[in-house]
C-alpha cells in the first residue's frame, strides 16, 4: 500500500447494487481515485472478510462510502463497525441517505412481508410454510442468520454520518464531486461542514431545461396516458414530477429523456420533508383554477382521486427519512 495515500472503503447494505456500479460509472476517473487512495474494503470487488475489518485499528479507514439502508442486524452491525473504523462515513446513494425504495417496506412489517414473500405469492411452493428465523436447529447444530427488522432505517438513524451523496444511484457528477471533495479535503484539511449533502442547494427544476410557464393544473395524467410536449415542464402538462421538491445535482437526467423526476435526490435543504412538501405543492396547484366552483368535499376528493398511489409517489425514496418514518401497525 502506498505511503501517504488515503484509505477508502465501500460497503453495501440494503440496496440493489446499483450504487456499486455507480462507482464504476465514473469511468477512467476511477484511476485518479486509485492514484490518491487505496481501497481497503470493498466486498463486491475484493475478497475480504468482516474479521479483517474488525482487526483494523479505529479510524483506520479515511473515507467509507456506505450504500444501502439498514434493515437487518448484519447491516446494523457493519454500519457500527465501519463507523468505528472510519474517519469519514459517507451515506452514498438514496438508500443509505433516505432509506430508498426498500424503505417503502416501512408501510408494512416483517410478519406481513414474510407472509407475502414466503407463503402467498403464486410462484411460491412452500408446503411446510417455512419462513426465515434468526436461529434454526439443524442436525449439524444451530444455524444463525441475521435478524430481519420490521423497519428500514437510513444510515444516519443507526450511526453518526458525516456526509451524504444523494441519488438512486448517485449521478456520475455527484460521485466525482464527492470523491474529489473528500479526497482533497482530507489531504488539505478543508472538508465541507459535517452533515453536508454533497449536492447543489437548488431543486431539480433549476437544472431542468424544460420551459416553465404556469403551474395551474387541472388534470393529472400518468406518463403513458399522454404524449408530452418535450419542451414544456411536465408538471404543467399534468404529469406528476417530483422535481420541484427534490434536491438537484443530477443535471435533471430523467427530465432530459422526458421522464418525470421521481425524487431520488431527496428533500431540498430547508424542507423538513420531501413527501409533505410535494403533497402541499401539488394540492395547492391542482384544480386551482376552478377552486371557486369545485370546493365541495366530493368534488375535491374527485380531484385528488387522480393521484394514484400518493405514498408511493411522494415517498418513493424517502419514507424512512420522513417525519413519521413508517406506518404504525395495528396488531
Amino acid at each position, binding site marked *: 500500500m502506498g505511503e501517504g495515500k488515503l484509505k477508502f472503503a465501500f460497503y453495501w447494505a440494503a440496496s440493489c447494487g446499483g450504487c456499486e456500479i455507480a462507482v464504476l460509472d465514473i469511468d477512467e476517473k476511477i484511476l485518479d481515485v486509485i492514484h490518491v487512495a487505496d481501497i481497503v474494503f470493498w466486498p463486491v470487488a475484493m475478497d475480504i472478510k468482516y474479521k479483517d475489518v474488525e482487526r483494523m485499528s479505529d479510524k483506520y479507514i479515511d473515507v467509507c462510502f456506505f450504500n444501502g439502508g439498514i434493515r437487518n442486524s448484519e447491516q446494523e452491525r457493519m454500519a457500527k463497525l465501519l463507523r468505528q473504523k472510519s474517519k469519514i462515513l459517507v451515506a452514498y446513494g438514496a438508500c443509505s441517505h433516505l432509506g430508498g425504495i426498500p424503505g417503502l417496506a416501512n408501510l408494512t412489517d416483517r410478519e406481513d412481508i414474510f407472509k407475502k414473500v414466503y407463503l402467498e405469492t403464486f410462484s411460491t411452493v412452500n408446503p411446510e410454510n417455512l419462513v426465515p428465523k434468526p436461529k434454526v436447529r439443524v442436525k449439524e447444530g444451530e444455524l444463525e442468520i441475521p435478524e430481519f427488522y420490521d423497519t428500514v432505517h437510513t444510515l444516519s438513524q443507526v450511526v453518526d454520518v458525516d456526509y451524504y451523496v444523494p441519488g438512486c444511484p448517485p449521478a456520475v457528477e455527484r460521485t466525482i464531486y464527492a470523491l474529489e471533495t473528500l479526497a482533497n479535503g482530507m489531504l488539505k484539511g478543508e472538508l465541507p461542514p459535517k452533515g453536508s449533502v454533497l449536492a447543489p442547494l437548488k*431543486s*431539480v427544476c433549476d437544472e431542468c431545461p424544460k420551459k*416553465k410557464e404556469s*403551474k395551474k393544473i387541472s388534470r393529472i395524467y400518468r406518463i403513458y396516458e399522454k404524449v408530452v410536449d418535450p419542451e414544456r415542464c411536465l408538471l404543467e402538462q399534468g404529469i406528476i414530477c417530483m422535481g420541484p421538491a427534490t434536491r438537484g445535482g443530477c443535471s435533471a437526467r430523467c427530465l432530459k429523456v422526458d421522464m418525470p423526476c421521481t425524487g431520488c435526490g431527496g428533500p431540498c435543504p*430547508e424542507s423538513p420533508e420531501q413527501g409533505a*412538501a410535494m403533497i402541499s*405543492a401539488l394540492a395547492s396547484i391542482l384544480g386551482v383554477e376552478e377552486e371557486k366552483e369545485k370546493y365541495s368535499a366530493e368534488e375535491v376528493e374527485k380531484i385528488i382521486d387522480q393521484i394514484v398511489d400518493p405514498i408511493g409517489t411522494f415517498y418513493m425514496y424517502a419514507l424512512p427519512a420522513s417525519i413519521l418514518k413508517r406506518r404504525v401497525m395495528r396488531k
Partner: protein
Amino acid sequence: MGSKVGAVLVVGGGVAGIQAALDLADSGFRVYLLDESPSIGGTMAQLDKTFPTNDCAMCILAPKLVAAGRHPNIHLITHAEVEGVEGEPGNFRVKIRRRARYVNPEKCTGCGVCARECPVEAIDEYDEGLSKRSAIYVKYVQAVPRTYVIDRERCIGCGTCKELCRAGAITYEDKDDITELSVGAIILAPGFEEFNPVVKSEYGYKRYPNVVTSIEFERILSASGPYGGIVLRPSDGRIPRKIAFIQCVGSRDSQIGNEYCSAACCMYAIKEAIIAKEHVPTKLECTIFYMDIRAYGKDFEKYYKRAMEEYGIRFVRARVASINEDPSTRNLILRYIVDEKPCEEEFDMVVLSIGMRPPKNAKKLADAVGIKLNEYGFCLTNPLSPIETSRPGVFVCGAFAGPKDIPESVAQASGAAAKAMGIVASERGKLVTSKVYPQERDVLGEEPRIGVFICHCGINIGGYVNVPEVTEYAKTLPNVVYAEHNLYTCSEDTQKRIKEKIIEYKLNRVVVASCTPRTHEPLFRETVREAGLNEYLFEMANIRDQCSWVHMHEPKAATEKAKDLIRSAVAKARMLRPLKKPMVNVIPVALVIGGGVSGMTAAVELARQGFEVHLVEREKELGGNLRRIYYLLEGEDPQEYLKNLINEVNKCSNIHVYLGAEVVEVSGFVGNFKSKILHGGEIKEIEHGVIIVATGATEYKPKEYLYGVDPRIITQRELEEMVYKGLFNAKTVAMIQCVGARNEENPNCSRICCSEAIKNALKIKEISPETEVYILYKDIRSYGFKEKYYHEALKKGVVFINYEDSRKPLVVKDGDRLRLVFWEPVLKQEIEIYPDLVVLSAAVVPNPDNRKVAEMLKVPLTKDGFFLEAHMKLRPVDFQTDGIFLCGLAHGPKSIDESISQACAAASRAATILSKSVLELEGIVASVDEDLCGGCRICEAVCPFGAIEMVEKEGKISAHVIEALCKGCGTCGSACPTKAIKPQHFTTEQILSQVKAILAG
C-alpha cells in the same frame, strides 16, 4: 378674519373624547384633550363588561387610553375646565382653568407610595363610594395620566406624602392657573351624569344598603372594584341569591321631569344580570322589572334572547311601586302589579337602572362655550345636523348630545372629528410633531433573552388560572431570563415597567400572556419599540379568550393549558427575527360606494377637507332611501335637506358622481386601490386610497298578514307616501310592529320601526284627528329623546296594545272588510276590529348586493347580512381590513341622524389615512431565499394577489415578492416545495417550534 389654527380642543376625556382626539391627531392636527377629572377614561373606565359581546371594558379601553396618553399630537389637560371661548370657527381663543393638583405631573412617576402612606380616608368616587381612597390618589390603576392628585378638601396637610415622595413631586403651594389656547374648532364630549335615585324615595336608595345603582353594581362586578369582582351585598358581605333590577329609574318619568329614555339601561341591566350570574358560583336568580325591553341595537335582540333562554334571567313587565326593607335580614320586599294583580316579592339585593342626566356642569360649560341646551339640559342639536351645536365651529358627540351607548358615542366622536377637520383642513400638519423612537437595537447574533409578562386581567385570568404558578413555570423555560405577573399587563404603568425590564435585563424578545393578539398586539409592539426593540420581537399567548374564559370551571386544566400556550409562545419568540415595514405612497382619493344620505355625507365631508371622491350609485339618482322619507318625527323637512345635500354634492368639484353605475372590481390595498366602475356601459378605472361602503338597506317585503293580497294592507313606507300625496282616507288604522323582525328568521330588532309607526300615527292624528289608530307592539322602542313622541302619541289617543309571539294578531278578509283579531292583555279577551288600513312595520333588511360587495372587498357580513365592523364597540365604522370603512344602513338599521353621524365618522376614519403621504405597512410579508429557489413557479400560481413575480438572472428564474402587494397570508410558504419562500413572522421553523413546544407538556 384671522388665520386658522391647526389645533382642536376636545372637552371631555371619556371614550368619545378620546376617539375624537385620536382621529384628529392621526390626521395631522394638534389636539388638546381636556377633562375635569384628574385622568381620562370617563364612565367606560368604570364599567366591568360591555354589551353585546361581554368584552371586558377596561381591556378594550386601555389600549385607547394608552394610545391617547402617548400620542405626540395629543396634549392632555386634566383636572381643568373651560372658562370662556372667543373668536370664530377656525380661530377660537379658549380660556382654561387648570385646577391645582398639588402634585407636579412632570415629576410624579405614579409609584403610589404617597397614597399607601396617606393617613386620610376619603370616599372613592371611581368605586362609586363603595370603597375608600386616600386624600392623595389616582382615579384608577390604569389611569392615564398616572399622576396623583391631592384632594385638598380631605387633606390634613400632615406632610407625610411630601416627605416620602422621592421624585419631589408634591407641591402644597400649587394654585389654579388660567391659560389661553388657540384652536380652530371645539368638540364637546363631557358625557353625562348619573341620575341620583335618592329623589325616588319609594326605592329607599341610601336608606337601604342593599339597594344600589347600576353603576355601583358595575363596580361590584368589576375585578378592580370594591369586592374584587365577587358579587356581595353591601350590608353584610353575603353573596346574594336573588337580585332584582328595576328599569327606568330616572328615565321615562315625567313626574321628575326626565321624560326621555336613557337608551342604554335595558342592555346594561341585561348585561349586569348575565355577568352577575357568571360571577356568583352558587345559584343566583336575576329578575328584571321593565316597561319595554329596548334591545334595539345591532345584535342586541339576540343578547336579550340569550339572557332569557341560556341564562334563565326572568323578565317581568311591571313597574315596581315600592321597596321596603326587612330590618332583620336587610332583604328587600318589592311591591308591583302584574296582570292587575298586586304582588309582593323578597330579594337580597336591588339594582336600580339609573338613567343618564346632562353632565353636572352642562349649564356652566354651555355658557362658557356659548352654546344652547335643549329642554332636558343636554346639548341642543338637530336630527339633520346631529353633531353641530348652536355655535358654528363647536361640535358635540357622545351622551352630551343625548343618551346613547358606547359604539354610537364612538361613531359620533369620529363624526365630530370630521366636522372639526372640515374647518381646519387647510392647517393640517402645521402644529404636529411626529413620534421619534429610540434607535433600534441590533439583536441579531445575540442569544435570545426573553422576558415574559403574565396578566391577571383583574380576575378575568387570575380568577381561573393560577397566574403566580404559571409565572414561576415561565421562568424555567429556555432563554427566559425574566418573568413577572401584572394586574393588568395592558395598563400604562405596566408599559413603563416592560420598558424598564427590557433595559434592565437586556431583553431582546418579549412575550405577553394575556388576552388576544387581535386587539392588544399593536399596543405591546409599540411598547417594545419604545424600548429600542424591533416591534416584531414580540409574541403573545392568549390565556384569556381562549383559556381562562372558556374553562372557568376547570382551573387546574386551565392553568396547565396556560403553561402550554406560554411555552409555545416562548418557543416562537426564540425564533423571532426583526422585520422592516414597507412604506407605500397614499393616493389621496376616496371611493364611496352608495349615494344615499350616508354616502353623500361621507363624500361631502371628505371633499370639504380637500380630498377627491368618486361617488358611485347604482340607481339613476342620488338619495337612496331618503328619497322616500317625507317627514321626520322631530318635524324637519327631509326632502329639503336631501335637495340641499344633492346640490352640495353636485357643486363640489372634487366629487365625481357616477349614477346608474356599479363597482365591479377592486384590487390593491390601503392607500393604493385600483377599482373598475361600470358606468354607462363602459369601464372606468380609478385609483384611490380608501373605500367607504354605504350601500344602504331596504324595507322588508312582508309575507305575513296578507300583504300583497289586499291593497289595504301596506307598509309604513307606503303609508307615509300615501299621507304625503294626500291619498290618506281611513277611519281606523291598525299598525302591526315587528313584521319580519324579532322572529326566527331575523332575530334582530329593526330599531327604527317603533319611531316610524309613532311618526306616522302622529301625522294621521294631525291630518285626521278623528281617525282611530291602534299600534300592536311587542316592546315600544322609542329610545332616547324619541320617547317624547311616544308620550305625545298616547296623549293624542293612539292606542298601544301589547302582543306576544304566542298570540300574534290575525288579519283576515271578512267579505269586503278586513278583520283584525288580537288579544287585549288588560281586558284579557280577544278583540276584533275592522280597520280600513292595516299598516305593517316591516323590518329593515340588508341590501341583497351586500354579499357581492363583501366578496369583492373581502370584508365580512353578520349572520343576517349586514356588514360586520372590526369591533362592535370601539371600531364601529372600520373594517378589519385597513383602508375600508362602512356607514349608514349598510352597518345595520338606524335613523337618519345616526346615519349622518356615522357617515361623518367614516369620513374621519378615512381622513386618518388620506391625510398621510406615506403609509407604513405591516412588516409581515413573504421573502424569497434566492439561493434555495428553484424557480418552479408554484408560489406564483397560488398567490391570489399577484404579489410574486419571476425574475431572471443568468438564464435562470427565481421568485421575487412585491412587498406592497403581499398581504402576508403565507399560502406561498406552504405551497413552496423547497421552502425557499418564507412567510415572515410565521416561518416554518417558527411554527414547527410552536408545534413541538405545545406538545412537550
